[in-house]
């Protein structure tokens, strides 16, 4: 039964992958949903980096955004609401050869998944995380999310929500061992692309919050930001997200911010007047739990047997 070929370092056939190699099922999101743009950017990142589809895994929870894996032609794990992180960690733990992406929603990550989110930041395993934050529950039809602004009218708060929203960036920046925090917006595909390129290149848990439009339930949520680029502030730095001329031209407001400076990162992330996009924090030196996971893989049956025999000896009568 277990006589299969054993470890996982097989050569992948050399072959150039085109965009369509990464295209899975036809997306079922609403036509002008912000998720489409992110999907396209991700497929471009995959092609740019020529990720082998069979060595790439997209993990998600439940939600509109969590349908993401189905629309990629890679391996995918569309699991339980709120639980993408533990699954992604388990996948990565003993498989350093796999590229792991997580697609999650604001409910999935910040509400039911909050505990796992905090711990995933701390585990700092090498994976790219996209929080598709539309500030609402999409799939279940418009309930308040922890990132919904105070006063949001939703089906669970028809008279307006009560609490100020969680700021996923500030929260992430407050967790020990945090190693990469960025923000981008679905309506600027070039910036989404370069942000995800940087996130993927970072060795560790790369957390990218993507402001994502849900025209179906919140048609006007980001319309000010979209129509007026001055409401956005671009974070620039030589160690930040790669500068793209078209993006730089678009946003007059920019701040030079060293992503090594966590204190300034927190202050910037806290801003409520403008939407900062770019890299808030990056520290490639943090402890990586996936390195621990990969520390003793590939033992031969004989090695395992020997170790077990040593143990049995200890308990021999």
């Amino acid at each position: 039964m277990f006589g299969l070929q054993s470890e996982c370092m097989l050569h992948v056939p050399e072959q150039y992958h085109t965009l369509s190699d990464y295209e899975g099922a036809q997306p079922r999101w609403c036509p002008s949903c912000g998720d489409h743009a992110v999907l396209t950017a991700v497929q471009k990142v995959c092609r740019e980096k020529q990720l082998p589809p069979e060595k790439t895994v997209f993990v998600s929870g439940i939600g509109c955004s969590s349908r993401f894996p189905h629309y990629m032609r890679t391996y995918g794990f569309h699991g339980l609401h709120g639980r993408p992180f533990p699954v992604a960690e388990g996948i990565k733990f003993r498989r350093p050869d796999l590229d792991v992406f997580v697609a999650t929603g604001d409910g999935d990550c910040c509400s039911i998944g909050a505990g796992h989110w905090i711990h995933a930041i701390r585990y700092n395993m090498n994976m790219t995380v996209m929080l598709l934050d539309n500030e609402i529950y999409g799939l279940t039809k418009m309930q308040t999310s922890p990132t919904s602004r105070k006063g949001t009218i939703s089906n669970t708060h028809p008279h307006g929500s009560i609490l100020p929203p969680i700021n996923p960036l500030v929260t992430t920046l407050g967790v020990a061992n945090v190693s990469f925090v960025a923000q981008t917006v679905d309506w600027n595909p070039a910036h989404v692309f370069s942000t995800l390129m940087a996130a993927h290149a970072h060795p560790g848990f790369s957390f990218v919050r993507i402001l994502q439009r849900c025209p179906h339930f919140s048609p006007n949520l980001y319309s000010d930001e979209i129509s007026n680029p001055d409401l956005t502030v671009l974070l620039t730095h030589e160690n930040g997200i790669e500068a793209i001329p078209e993006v730089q031209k678009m946003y007059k407001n920019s701040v030079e911010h060293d992503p090594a400076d966590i204190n300034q990162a927190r202050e910037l992330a806290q801003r409520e007047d403008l939407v900062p996009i770019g890299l808030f924090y990056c520290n490639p030196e943090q402890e990586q739990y996936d390195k621990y996971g990969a520390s003793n893989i590939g033992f031969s049956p004989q090695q395992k047997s020997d170790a077990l025999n040593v143990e049995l000896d200890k308990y021999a009568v």
Partner: protein
Amino acid sequence: MLKGNSDELAAPENVSSGEEKTGIKVMPVEECIVEIVSDAGEGAQKAGQSFGSVSAKMGNGVWTVEIIPAEVQPPARSRAGASGIRIRFGSDKVTNMGDEADLVVAFNEQVLYGRIDQKAYREGTIILIESKWKESKVPEIQEEYALAMQEFKQYGFDVREIRMEEECLKFVENPSKGKNMWVLGMLCSIYARDIEKAEAQIRHTFRRKSKKIIESNLLLLNAGYNWASKNLNLRFQILSEAESVSKVVMNGNEAVGMGVMAAGIEVCSMYPITPATSVTHYLSEVFEKSGGLVHQAEDEIAAIGFAIGASYAGKTAVTVTSGPGMALKTEFIGLATMAEVPLVIVNVQRGGPSTGLPTKVEQGDLLSAIFGQPGDTPTVVLAPATIEECYHFVILSRQLAEAFRMPVIMLTDANLATGVQPFTRPEINLDSFSPPIDQSPWKKEIRPYEWDEKTGLSQRPIPGQSDGMYVLTGLAHDEESHVAYDSHINQLGCNRRSRKMAAIFKTLSPPTVNGDEKGDLLVVGWGSTLGAIEEAVNKARQMGGSVSSLHLRFLSPIEPGLEKIFKRFKKVMTVEINYGDEENDPLITSENRRRSQLSWFLRAHTLTDVDFLAHIHGQPMRPGFILQRLKKELGL
């Protein structure tokens, strides 16, 4: 053999049998039950474990079980604080902790009360008790002690007051630290244990401690031995046949841990919970050396999610927990069933419901393991009945999980977890170390759930296999793993997952009946109660009772042939550590009686009116308790 650094200490000769030099008569006995009870932290368990190991090494059958108080540090000298160990050992194989103890060493009288409340002793039980309390500076303690001595004698115990600490003080400065080793020496004298084996055991136990500590422990061991040889007129001899097979001795949780390694499992994902955690304590220590790792997750949900992720990625995985943790894993077990991810789940059952009795034994998770999931969720549930099976069933569980692409729940309990028993050293099968991973290209035309119509089986692609790409989902899905809500697809998927159970069922053979194939009464059990049930049934048979027993290892799918077997007996009853309403409870009728879990399950399965003997005392089933009921049922 160390002589000690005092000249006074002369090692006693090895006792063989018959009359000793001192003129004390050596009593040959077939088996004994010994307890050591103390406040927490006084080392009773260490002494008892060593005693058990020495006995096993001398060829005796042995069962040891720890007596654990509920709190980390309960108040000293309190009933609730009774901490210690019971060792049952004999010429033959010993399968359970037995009934009342024959001899007990007690470090104070209050913890003895705790054990008396548990009905651990009988008239005539020999009590060797520390007598320093007689001269305590606290008048209340003096009084309590005096009162206890009176009462103990009234109860008919054979009480021997011994100045243990005073004796220890002759050799060490702080007797409270090494008294346990002195007691071990005393017991070795009483039960004619091979003192060299005891010394070797001490060296092993304290191998990480300083030489000084080892020496002082050896000194006390010999002191206790000598003192008892000179001052106690107690000497028993438990013969044993020299066995040719090599054996190992360990508790059930260690056996599970070793089974995990033997099964070729690579990832053990857990969150601490009593009484399961020690499986992972053991593994954390040694797993790395056999190419595995323990992951302590942030909670039980994450623990199982992590294991499922690892398994999806082609790494064999287990998650280990107990009742409250199982409750939290409910949703993810459903996902593993729905998406057909192999996974081994070990549930070391404790007392419930809710947080319940964290350190105590119960078999209360049977029905929730089988039926705990919303929706139709066929799950394999199996239960080892001995410590040896704890080892082997992990291997079996992994094999089933992989072959049938589904989660397998293995139920043990606190009795197996802490019970220690020798068993035949397992043979290692290199095959079981093969990883399930196969990175050769997947045949493009095979779908990720290409269910065999008859067996529901399918082959699974694993990340890394080119052309195997698919998206796993817990939503209703077709053979491509595409989300599909059509009526017939949902019916098909559920049917294929269910059919795997029939396929497993076909591989099982009917359980063997212990005793005659037909008769007046059949006792059915599962899990850790095997030894106690068979002991009681065999005794009842010796008394002329027409009774047999049968023990289930597979609960879901359940083993075949039960209905036929049941029909051959006038009455069938289960014996379980579970709750069930008593027949004569107020308001209870046969219609509204809430029956213990296995009996209820067997009623549905066999349409037989299965009765039960059940308690939830938080204690293992004792053979005597069962025998009493058998006698009543059989009119003996």
